[in-house]
């Protein structure tokens, strides 16, 4: 495995018991500095793949490595270097925002000074600092999403995995998140995220994979895939073809 590979998925398949596979021999590689978009219809297998990458979903076929650690063999080492933001984050509603962020920081053993600085930095960027003392149950969907994003950033992950991260975010927060994604990649981390918003993927990602009925049908750099076309045109074309 190349030294700069952050996420390596080889032959990953997931079957829920019937004849249809939710993920079928998925292979892809995310390198340091990549912003990798994972695109597909609803039910194509994006979340099934993402949940296996972050060690939430059990799987038997294939191998997934994060920074050289196997998700199956050494899940804790993988999780230490990964941050996950689900599409609909279920946070502890009866904790305040700051209590939740402290909980995550404690689990990742982040020292007080560093956590304070990072929480301050990201909560200021997402303009949520003054709300951190309130119960999460009083937050809007977007505010919960912001807390989930901050909690993912405060341990400075090598790999950020996000499932539909822009859903529910206001335009400014979306812009801030994109900025942070670029910053992370400049510092040698990688971002792997699913989205339906093809315009965002086209502008943001340097690599893309399109998944259909559990199979990767196209993958590569944005230039390789588009050849002067828009990503939307490419997506509709390959979806109809295969």
């Amino acid at each position, binding site marked *: 495995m190349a030294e700069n590979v952050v996420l390596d998925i080889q032959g990953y398949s997931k079957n*829920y*018991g*019937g004849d*249809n596979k*939710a993920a079928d021999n998925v292979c892809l590689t995310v390198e340091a500095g990549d912003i990798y978009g994972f695109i597909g219809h609803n*039910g194509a297998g994006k979340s099934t793949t993402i*949940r296996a990458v*972050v*060690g*939430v*979903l*059990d*799987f038997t076929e294939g191998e997934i490595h994060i920074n050289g650690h196997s998700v199956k063999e050494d899940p*804790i*080492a993988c*999780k*230490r270097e*990964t941050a*996950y933001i*689900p599409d609909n*984050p*279920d*946070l*502890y*509603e*009866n*904790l*305040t925002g700051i*209590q*939740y962020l402290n*909980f*995550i920081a*404690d*689990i*990742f*053993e982040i020292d007080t000074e560093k956590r304070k600085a990072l929480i301050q930095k990201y909560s200021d960027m997402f303009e949520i600092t003054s709300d951190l*003392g*309130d*119960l999460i*149950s*009083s937050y809007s969907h977007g505010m919960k999403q912001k807390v989930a994003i901050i909690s993912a950033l405060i341990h400075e992950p090598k790999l950020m995995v996000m499932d539909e991260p822009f859903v529910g975010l206001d335009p400014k927060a979306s812009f801030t998140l994109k900025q942070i994604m670029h910053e992370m990649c400049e510092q040698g981390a990688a971002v792997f995220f699913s989205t339906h918003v093809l315009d965002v993927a086209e502008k943001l990602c340097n690599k893309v994979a399109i998944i259909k009925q559990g199979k990767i049908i196209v993958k590569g750099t944005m230039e390789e895939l588009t050849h002067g076309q828009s990503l939307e045109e490419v997506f509709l074309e390959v979806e109809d073809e295969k």
Partner: protein
Amino acid sequence: MRNKNIILLTALLKSSSLWNISKYSKDKKKRRRVIAGIIGFVFLFLMMLAYCLLACLGFDALGIIDTVPVTCALLISTIAFFFTLFKTNGYLFHFKEYDMLMALPLRSKDVAGCKFLYMYIKSLPWYAGISLSMMMGYGIFAHPHIAVYPVWIILSLFVPIIPMLFASFLGFLIAKISSGFRKKNIIQIVLSFAVVMFSFSLRYIVEALIRSDRVADLAAKASDVSETIGTYYLPAGLFANAILSLNSQALFAVFSGILLIGLTLFLFEAVFALVGRFYRQINSALSSHEKRKNFQMRVHKRGVLNTIAFKEFRRMTGSTTYFVNVALGEIMAAIAGVAVLMLGFDRVVSIVTQGAPIPTGILNPAIPLILYFLIGMMTSTAVSPSLEGKNYWIMQSLPLTKKTLYRGKILFQMYLSVPFMIFGILCFGLFAHVALLDMLLYLAQGVALCAFSATWGCVCGVKYMRLDWENEIEVIKQGTAVPLYLLPNMFVTMGMVALVVWLGTRMNTRLITLALIAVVGALAMLSYRKVMRYASL
């Protein structure tokens, strides 16, 4: 740095702590609800304390005060077992924040262990309430050695853990087996019912075992009872030995105490080593659903009320916890009916009352109430308003009035309870040789009782509606509406059974049944009107 398990456990406890909510919530209504919850809890706690002290008084009067430690251990163990059995699905497995927790660098074993300890600590005030009040009673009447008190307090902290582990392990087995099936939910419901029914019948099995050991004269052989129970349920025996032997055989007492603690810790490690191994696999399977992709367009048209009732039906069958808690009484009534069909009414009465000399026919006027004791034990309407939870917006955004919504919920409860009530009454009545007119009156009384259960449950459910829950168990097992419906209903029904049987020996039983139909019908009507008043607020 603190241990990660402690960090997780603290977060879990904080996330459901009333103190945290009342401290940080700006919502006055929410804070008021927290205070009302605390007052209700204190009230229940005091009731429990009084009950335990009175029980000790009774034991002393019978001259069997030395059975208090083993009784205390058994009582705590039974409550701990059933509390946990009903909570495993939803707390230990298939919980809401599973993805968030499992994506953190925590071992599966630790997540499961912390979830278990969270359940334990949340229930600990109840166990401690029983333990401390029985210790007080024992102290007052038995005048034990001073060292008994600290030993009692320390050991009683460990007593609930083994039954909780046992219940969790059963929950694990149920989850493991059902996760291998396509229809996971149905398998889970069937297995849960089987385990609950078997657990209930354990009482009769244990009693039969004790009786076969010829320990009949309780007053004369109190120590034998402790010993026999200790033989069949070791943790209770160890607890009792540690308390009772402290004065005479201190070494044996210390050994028993250490053995109880050691056994508890060993079982905790063993259970969670095993659960941890399969934790991700089970949760993955339980949270995943295969798509059949073979749908052929078919649509059904229903009336509005039936649509709501159907929605309630799907909500109930979609959740093992909800189904097992709400439909338990109906299933028990069906089992009782089948038992009567197979064994006859008198034989079933004889088994339940352990051969008490009950004259034939004396229980007949109480048949609907006996069945109501089972069927009315719980009602879906007490929890279904709260169970709308975060999906309440769906109902709110539809062109439906609250009145229609609550009528639909009441209708569903009637659909659920009435067939079981009728089946039970027919089985009981036929085998008790009840006359046709009496049978018709009993059926009318049964339907009236079902209507009362549905409407009174709805009053409780709407009055204490709580939509901001994290886990549905908070509503189904811990919501204010549930004890408000359940406790008075249960005690009043028990009292009514006794009263009707007693009155039946003194006056015309048909008059009693007619009077009951009128009273219950009026109460159902009043409750219904109350629900409609709430709906128009």
